[in-house]
């Protein structure tokens, strides 16, 4: 069971295969919970967000299209959205704005030495680590924290146009680098 791809396990998860479901959750729970915790900053809230993300992935499994990306990235996108909804619902959006998690792994010197990460994640980290810090921070604030470029501008006291340029350049560079490195499905 553990030799199966994420996508194969997800197929069983969506179809109600108990063994596949358990394996799928255990394989990705650290990533899902970790992302939830990075955004909501509270273990109890992160637990609820992570559980809700798995349930939504199961409920909306039919909308997953592996031609558009990996199931892990899709699930993490759901997690981010649930986490942002949770933060907004509690009126705590101001707490996270401009506050990029210090433990963001792209800051590590040698991403290949990060313990416990799978190859594709390590490759993303490596590419992220190669971005200019200002582009990386702007990109993380927008993609992970769900901020608008105007919000990033206001919090970081950087002109709005500059923030937009950083996000555009960062995303284009990331795509260009990842095309040759990440194993797209």
């Amino acid at each position, binding site marked *: 069971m553990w030799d199966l791809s994420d996508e194969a396990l997800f197929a*069983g998860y969506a179809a109600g295969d108990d063994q596949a479901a358990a394996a799928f959750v255990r394989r990705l729970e650290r990533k899902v919970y970790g992302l939830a915790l990075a955004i909501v900053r509270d273990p109890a809230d992160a637990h609820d967000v992570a559980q809700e993300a798995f349930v939504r992935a199961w409920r909306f499994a039919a909308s997953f299209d592996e031609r558009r990306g990996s199931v892990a*990235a899709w699930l993490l996108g759901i997690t981010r959205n649930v986490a942002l909804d949770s933060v907004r619902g509690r009126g705590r959006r101001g707490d996270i704005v401009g506050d990029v998690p210090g433990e963001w792994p792209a800051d590590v010197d040698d991403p290949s030495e990060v313990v416990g990460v799978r190859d594709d994640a390590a490759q993303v980290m490596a590419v992220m680590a190669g971005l200019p810090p200002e582009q990386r921070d702007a990109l993380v604030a927008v993609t992970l924290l769900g901020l608008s470029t105007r919000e990033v501008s206001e919090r970081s006291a950087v002109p709005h146009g500059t923030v937009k340029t950083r996000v555009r350049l960062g995303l284009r560079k990331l795509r260009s680098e990842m095309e040759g490195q990440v194993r797209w499905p």
Partner: protein
Amino acid sequence: MAVMRCEQLRDMAPDVALGLLTGRERAAALAHLERCETCRTEVAALAGTADELLLAAPEATPPDGFAAGVLARLAAEEPVRDAPGAPAPIDGDRGARPSGRRRMVVAAVAAVVVLVVGGLAVALRSDGGAGTEVAATAVMRTGQGQVVGEATVSGDAPAAVEIDVPGWDAMVDRWGGASEAGYLLAVETSDGERTVKPAPGAGDDDGWSVTVDAPAGDVTTVSVLDDEGRVWCSGRFRAG
């Protein structure tokens, strides 16, 4: 609303991919994407990259029992997803075999058991099951939840599981071709036993039939897998 050109759209493609546009800009961009496949592809690629970025998010160990909690919630949700309004079986005549449509496997062969190994027999469909009361049915779904057919189980030790997948052609088209090595049929029973056997070779006008040495009421799920272990479709039986 001003018509947006490709050069303009490409300049702001990252903003579109990240959902950062609002108002008229957003409306103009969406109108352009609706008619320009090249720009759609560009935006989709950038959106995919942004999603992959999340793979580098920090990991953390959830509290003990997290996975069990998720599975318990799924169990509670199951009746909701299968409630009226959810995708219906392709053939509403439960227990009856659809006819005249392409199905997963070939010709009906009169009552010939091809394999009988370890209590599970895999046979080309015969007419032997005709007239036997169906104990339970299962909607066959892909991993994405798409309904592609139906399975029925009947009889007592051995129980006969019959699988009809009239949506098979669409599945093969979508997922890029059938497995040349053939397929496997997996049947699970309530005692946790899971038996996997090669399915008879693909043909063109019949369904698969499997018998398992257990009462029909004990058969819980049936799945069709390829030689790489990928689940092409599966179904959970419900008394009907």
